[in-house]
């Protein structure tokens, strides 16, 4: 399945366990030969895809896995090549990475930071993975990113939206293609202003954990900057399944916009509950009551059904975009699996390609070399327009989509329509922005 030529800095010298060694006819690998963790020595290179396969995000994880599989096929020269054909960098030849065939192992994060680290460790220690990618929540992504930093492998983050991933918890070995809460807010604010005006009272319901807080902070700051008033910010327990007791007080709070800083199952339920309570048809202060879901997931939005109609939010990418790269990816994915890819699938596909391309350009799998190749890398042709991997925090800067629940969907996938493509310039922030302060990249670790 995989090789195991894996070494570690700080490896014990032969003497320490010589007792065990002497008794056996051993052939020792010289431990100091490898220059970095899991240096691939055979004809193949192993990547580790760590996604939620059990628990509430299992479907999202499954979609990510599909995209990884597709990316690996394309890298190995199978299939139609997908976005490799539209990618602005033409280094990849379809013969694997640096001539080595790409293999992969998968694991289950269970959407728990502990389990995710165990799974990632097993890929590094047992399967010899040289890069770990995945994640469907920020807590998991940050935890695994920390692990990869310590272990000396590259981490290509999957779906993680918290500011912290490339903010206070950023790491030299970690890279994020996905957008973040600040970007969502910056992209949404002008649209909200256009559609709903500047005289609005917003009520926040926020999932009571780190991601929810960063999103609440980002959105509140952006909306307040354009003149909105924040009526209340209410934290809801993560384990909540029924949000009615939090929605009910919104009715008489004087607010005319409800912002749901929820994701996944929480988002489905809180949105469903909000619509149940008639908030969508309500009039307050002579204005239509509005609901905003800053981070949309199309897969999950399906669970809320017709309730998403007309509700604004943002996404990293959507299959209905009309650029060549998106079309190529949707075609490639849709032909293989029979339905369009989600934004989670898209981001992990991009991350895999970006990693492979960086390795190709660097001419090595050494994480430090790859890091250098990715830092400040500008590219296009992956569905988000011109994109920059900023060197200072390893965050991608690209256009952000503002979307709205579609009124008349033609199919079960056709839930969202793109309202606006906010250009990258508007969502870019300085590295020392206070919402991202407090951490340091540190130096790259090659193990």
């Amino acid at each position: 399945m995989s090789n195991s030529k894996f070494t570690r800095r700080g490896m014990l010298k032969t003497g320490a366990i010589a007792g065990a060694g002497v008794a056996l006819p051993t052939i020792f690998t010289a431990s100091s030969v490898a220059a970095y963790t899991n240096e691939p020595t055979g004809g193949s290179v192993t990547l580790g895809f760590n996604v939620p396969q059990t628990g509430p995000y299992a479907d999202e994880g499954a979609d990510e896995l599909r995209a990884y599989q597709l990316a690996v096929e394309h890298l190995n020269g199978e299939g139609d090549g997908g976005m490799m054909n539209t990618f602005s960098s033409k280094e990849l030849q379809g013969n694997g990475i640096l001539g080595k065939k790409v293999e992969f192992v998968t694991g289950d994060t269970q959407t728990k930071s502990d389990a995710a680290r165990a799974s990632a460790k097993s890929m590094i220690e047992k399967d010899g993975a040289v890069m770990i990618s995945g994640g469907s929540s920020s807590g998991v992504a940050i935890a695994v990113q920390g692990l990869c930093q310590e272990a000396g492998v590259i981490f290509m983050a999957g779906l993680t939206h918290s500011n912290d991933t490339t903010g206070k918890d950023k790491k030299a070995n970690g890279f994020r293609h996905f957008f973040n809460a600040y970007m969502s807010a910056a992209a949404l604010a002008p649209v909200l202003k256009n559609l709903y005006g500047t005289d609005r009272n917003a009520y926040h319901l926020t999932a009571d954990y780190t991601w929810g807080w960063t999103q609440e902070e980002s959105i509140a700051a952006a909306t307040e900057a354009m003149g909105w008033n924040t009526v209340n910010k209410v934290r809801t327990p993560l384990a909540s399944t029924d949000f009615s007791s939090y929605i009910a007080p919104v009715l008489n709070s004087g607010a005319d916009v409800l912002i749901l800083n929820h994701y996944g199952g929480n988002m489905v339920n809180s949105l469903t509950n909000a619509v149940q309570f008639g908030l969508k048809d309500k009039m307050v202060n002579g204005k239509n009551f509005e609901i905003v879901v800053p981070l949309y997931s199309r897969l999950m939005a399906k669970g809320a059904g017709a309730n998403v109609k007309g509700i604004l939010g943002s996404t990293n990418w959507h299959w209905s975009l009309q650029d060549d790269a998106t079309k190529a990816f949707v075609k490639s994915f849709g032909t293989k699996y029979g339905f369009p890819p989600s934004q989670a699938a898209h981001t992990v596909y991009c991350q895999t390609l970006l990693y492979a391309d960086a390795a190709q350009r660097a001419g090595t799998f050494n994480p430090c070399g790859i890091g250098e190749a990715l830092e400040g890398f500008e590219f296009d042709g992956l569905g988000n327009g011109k994109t920059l991997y900023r060197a200072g925090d390893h965050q991608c800067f690209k256009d952000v989509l503002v979307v709205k629940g579609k009124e008349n969907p033609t199919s079960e996938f056709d839930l969202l329509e793109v309202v606006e493509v906010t250009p990258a310039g508007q969502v870019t922030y300085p590295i020392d922005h206070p919402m991202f302060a407090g951490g340091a990249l540190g130096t790259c670790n090659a193990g």
Partner: protein
Amino acid sequence: MDAILLQILNGLDKGSAYALIALGLTLIFGTLGVVNFAHGALFMIGAFCAVTVQRILNISFETVDPTQTDFLGNALIVKTPYLEAWFGPETGGSIIDWAVPLAILFAIPVMVFVGFAMERGLIKHFYKRPHADQILVTFGLAIVLQEMIKFFYGANPIQTPAPEMLSGIVNVGAIIGMDIVYPVWRIVYFFFSLLVIGGIFSFLQFTTFGMVVRAGMADRETVGLLGINIDKRFTIMFGIAAAVAGLAGVMYTPINSPNYHMGMDFLVLSFVVVVVGGMGSLPGAVLAGFLLGILESFASMNEIKSLIPGIDQIIIYLVAIIILLVRPRGLMGRKGVMEE
């Protein structure tokens, strides 16, 4: 004032689900003495009965519409449910619209069957085994059931809306001259739960079957000595308990879209409800269900949350601890039942 009344109403509505699940759990514990960790899974299966009925009603034939394109740019395949074709879009559409209430008819036999199968196939071997073994086996069973649902229906929530007529909101405060709007379906759910609870109680109270079961709950041996086959009746009670959980699940689907792990989300909570009410006490389970629902609603009010941060995270457990320490047999538990 409005806000408090609204939260009381909300608590009753939340409590309906707790009460129904706890009622079934207590029936099983009271009759068979089994700690059933698979009870949440029964609730979940009930909810998926609604999903299944919705899917069945939506069975469609496909036509190609060349004027539109799908995501790959091919001609769009439009699906039309047979029901709409047979009865016209109007009637067919409204039949589909009523999928959830219709699912009740589907769920009752399915759940009773599932209950029987569970009891006869597995649980009956565990009457004499320690509670720990019962927990392990029912927990294992819950995982299996849950994974089966996940395998067929996926992990994401699936929307099962209420009928158009019963969606929307109603001003329930109008009667007392106040402005308290509340979703119609949630009120339906509340009354539905009262109906089911009332049905179970009168069944136990007024039928011979029920009387025997109640006698059996109080003193199994004596009833057995009378030559009455109590085990068979208890098996039937297991089926009924499963059906109660299932109905609670069916009707819950429009409130929150069902997913495969919804049973586990309710499991711990429903055990807390049962214990607070008093192990083996049916009225206790119902009372505790509503009580905890109301307390939970109050704890989520901003005024309370600002006084005690995080109170809504722990209220249920805090109340359970206090009640168990002050009144070990729970609110309405009989003295001596699993006490000391």
